């Protein structure tokens, strides 16, 4: 596809690299399209389609600095016309010339380096970067979504909303489909491309008096696999569970966390697992006296927390795309291949998120961030959530968590709320709905109190789904989950 401005993203990358005068240059051209529908109280509230086109140029200046040193200038601009490409390149070069040497300065990856980190990508590396059989080639037009993706969904949703209205329930929710095509080129010859579909549906059902509420959500890549009527039926069952209301006080409860709640807690743990700050002694993964806790056992359960750009159904970019440097990301790492990484392996901390620079600072292997997360047990035949409920003596069953914020980074203590359904399970059955709670819990501490880990399934993190869409998690049974106070919210 040629953009309205006349250049395809591939041509934009080529023109920007051709215009570059700096010692090295990285160009990232991205085309994003999005379509969404939102509804509340059984009717539409907002909707829209959007398209954007972003060009990021990273100029690297190795002159005027000592051996091995370099400075970088980053300029990102939307809607660049062909006649503006050179201007963006020059802006980045001026920024690089003004900048002091970058701590993370390094050589850019070349085509031959593809596969040099982790090994799993080696057989997929080509002279122009990664080949991925699920992805179109470099020269193919960028992918694009549009409102038609939601046409069949909207028709089914309309029927579902009318059915809910007739049954005295109110439905609220959101459906969104995004497609981003990323084209990465470097002056060292790397050309990599990744098309990322991201979709989700969230559905919230409430009783007519708004006193009972239930939620479900699903991530999807193409919307053909969304059963909105089925989701609504599941919520209707949960609203029925809530017809018996039970008041319970704050306290520590054995608690069954569904996959979405596990995803929210472990996603925050993942985001907090940076190598640099751990090595500096200021995170929960710092070892007192110096170093990190890598190698330390965090859970008695044989659980593994991992990311893999080629995980089935959760595929994400298999190479580093860094628009800016940060504690554990580096613009100098652009194009480095990503491979399957275990952050926690069989219960022990195995790796921390790092750039090449922060890995060196921390004395750890280079393991950059990857845009998906899986948590699973290696125990034989892990149970489904329904089976875990059936074998429960007395425990709380949560629907999801909300408004999660860090309270204490020393322990990674998080606070937040239960939301849209807390149920009491007694003798293997749900016996009613309990009031909501504010919790104060650490996901790291929770790993040490896992009583049971179920079967891993794809899930949508309720809290972090805006930013982190690709997760597979099990339900877990936690000993003494700390419900700090009662919330009046229903």
């Amino acid at each position, binding site marked *: 596809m040629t953009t*309205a401005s006349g250049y395809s993203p591939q041509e934009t990358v080529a023109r920007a690299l051709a215009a570059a005068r700096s010692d090295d240059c990285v160009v990232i051209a991205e085309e994003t399209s999005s379509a969404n529908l939102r509804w509340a109280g059984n009717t539409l509230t907002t909707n829209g389609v*959007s398209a954007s086109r972003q060009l990021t140029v990273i100029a690297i200046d190795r002159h005027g600095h000592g051996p091995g040193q370099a400075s970088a200038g980053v300029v990102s601009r939307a809607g660049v016309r062909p006649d503006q490409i050179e201007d963006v390149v020059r802006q980045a070069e001026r920024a690089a010339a003004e900048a002091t040497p970058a*701590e993370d300065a390094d050589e850019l990856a070349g085509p031959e380096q593809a596969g040099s980190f982790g090994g799993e990508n080696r057989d997929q590396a080509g002279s122009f970067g990664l080949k991925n059989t699920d992805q179109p080639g470099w020269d193919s037009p960028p992918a694009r979504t549009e409102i038609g993706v939601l046409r069949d969904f909207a028709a089914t949703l309309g029927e579902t909303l009318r059915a809910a209205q007739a049954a005295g329930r109110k439905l*609220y929710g959101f459906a969104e489909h995004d497609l981003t095509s990323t084209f990465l080129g470097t002056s060292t010859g790397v050309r990599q491309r990744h098309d990322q579909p991201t979709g989700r549906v969230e559905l919230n059902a409430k009783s007519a008096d708004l006193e009972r509420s239930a939620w479900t959500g699903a991530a999807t890549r193409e919307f053909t696999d969304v059963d909105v009527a089925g989701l609504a039926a599941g919520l209707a069952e949960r609203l029925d569970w809530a017809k018996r209301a039970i008041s319970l006080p704050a306290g520590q409860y054995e608690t069954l966390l569904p996959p979405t709640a596990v995803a929210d807690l472990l996603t925050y743990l993942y985001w907090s697992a940076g190598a640099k700050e751990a090595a*500096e002694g*200021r995170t929960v993964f710092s070892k007192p006296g110096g170093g990190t806790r890598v190698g330390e056992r965090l859970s008695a359960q044989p659980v593994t927390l991992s990311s893999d750009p080629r995980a089935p159904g959760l595929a994400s970019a298999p190479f580093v795309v860094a628009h800016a440097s940060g504690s554990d990301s580096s613009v100098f790492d652009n194009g480095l291949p990503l491979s399957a990484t275990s952050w926690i392996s069989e219960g022990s901390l195995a790796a921390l998120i790092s750039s090449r620079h922060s890995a060196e600072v921390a004395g750890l292997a280079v393991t950059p961030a990857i845009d998906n997360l899986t948590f699973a047990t290696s125990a034989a035949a892990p149970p489904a959530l329904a089976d875990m409920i059936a074998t429960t003596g007395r425990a709380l069953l949560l629907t999801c968590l909300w408004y*999660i914020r860090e309270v204490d980074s020393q322990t990674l*203590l998080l606070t937040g709320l239960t939301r849209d359904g807390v149920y009491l399970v007694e003798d293997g059955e749900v016996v009613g709905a309990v009031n909501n709670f504010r919790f104060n819990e650490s996901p790291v501490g929770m790993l040490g109190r896992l009583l049971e880990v179920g079967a891993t399934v794809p899930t949508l993190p309720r809290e972090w789904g805006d930013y982190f869409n690709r997760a597979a998690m099990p339900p877990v049974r936690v000993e003494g989950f700390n419900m700090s106070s009662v919330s009046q919210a229903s």
Partner: protein
Amino acid sequence: MDDHRPGIDPEFTALPLRDLADAALAQAKSLGAQHADFRAERTRSQHIGLSDGNPQTLIDADDSGLAVRVIVDGTWGFASAVDLTTDAAALAAREAIEVAKVAATINTEPIELAPEPAYGDVTWVSAYEIDPFTVSAADKVALLAQWSNTLLAHAAVSHVDASLQQVRECKFYSDGVTTATQQRIRLQPALTAVAVSDDGRFDTMRTLAPPVGRGYEFLTPNPLRGGAGWDFEAELAELPELLAAKLGAPSVEPGRYDLVIDPSNLWLVIHESIGHATELDRALGYEAAYAGTSFATLDKLGSLQYGSGIMHVTGDRTAEHGLATIGYDDEGVAGQSWDLITDGILSGYQLDRRMALLKGFGRSNGCSFSDGPGHMPLQRMANVSLEPAAGGPSTEDLIAGVDNGIYILGDKSWSIDMQRYNFQFTGQRFVKIKNGRLAGQLRDVAYQATTTDFWGSMEAVGGPQTYVLGGAFNCGKGQPGQVAPVSHGCPAALMRGVRILNTAEEGAK
């Protein structure tokens, strides 16, 4: 536009803005839209981050695009495009019509908008002196590095994070009767010092400087310009000792305490427990599946006892240097100021044009905002502020009235439930109050309360001399998620008998 204010970015005004609007609005009308409005936006932003005085992050971004919103047979349709051409504007109008047709299958409430006067062709620019984008990045990095090194020179400081975010937001809006061209400048500086002890304990302390709707003069106050800035030198001079004292402070004993809350902490409680709770779209349930609803439902307007009788809260989009201040909102409604809580009673809401008509308010109070051309406008938060007491007490006077309490400064952790009842906050510093005097810092403090109990416990508010405009760059709401900048002014305040938790004990349970 005030004469003393700088003009709008000439690169933005040089765009064919009116041609784009004409193309979009004409296309929408020709295809049957009962209403159409058009926006074109350009937002420059720069983020600078330093770690231990060394540059770590420096990114310049320049986002632009256009948006068309229509009402077709009572249903919204919205589309945006990145190219600022008349062809792209007309195409976006056609796409918005198509979206409305697809969405009509799930719409049961016809959309109508409250009337608003026509303002013609108007211009508005926020109040600032120095556009931060006229200052070189090297100068900004050098200033942040100098400040970082000031902190690092102290033995108690192990690490320093420094950051500076700057935004120049240009918006063009037209609905055929009002055409508004506007520009806002804002920036957010922050330095965080980290102390790590030999036994592995660590703690942090961040500067109290708020994000502001000002220019670069905020970082470099000059008495010749009226000194309209933050005194970073003074704050950085005391930060290391304060951090060292915090790391060595005793852990708080949980229980109920009287609290004197500094504006640097209280603004966030206002934001979460009043600002969001008085958004009418929440009260009506439009955010029920995501951001949540509100306990302050419409049937309680005029009767809900929100807090003590000394509580008076306003909403406004007019306060000078306010982050939510604007001349005209994203529906062409002029900026206004109004009451939200009067003498402790719920007395108003934040509105957009649709809700204003739907619920009989007559006119919108101008709270429609979109964070960029790619998103449909939502009702977003105005500056929501707690009024000081005329001739009221100083912070020292408030502290003098407490036998056993805690003085809390700076915001840190925050969380509130989906109906805005139950909240928990921490802060940057907690100072014990004993018999009316400060008696050293405490650690591991969080306070937890229910909104109406908390505001009902407010015994006194400080005078105007204690008033500070705080706020945030990144208030989140809506799906797709949008961020909005917003300010909250408040005086220091005295609350009686608030529940204090020990966060170390909470983590050990």
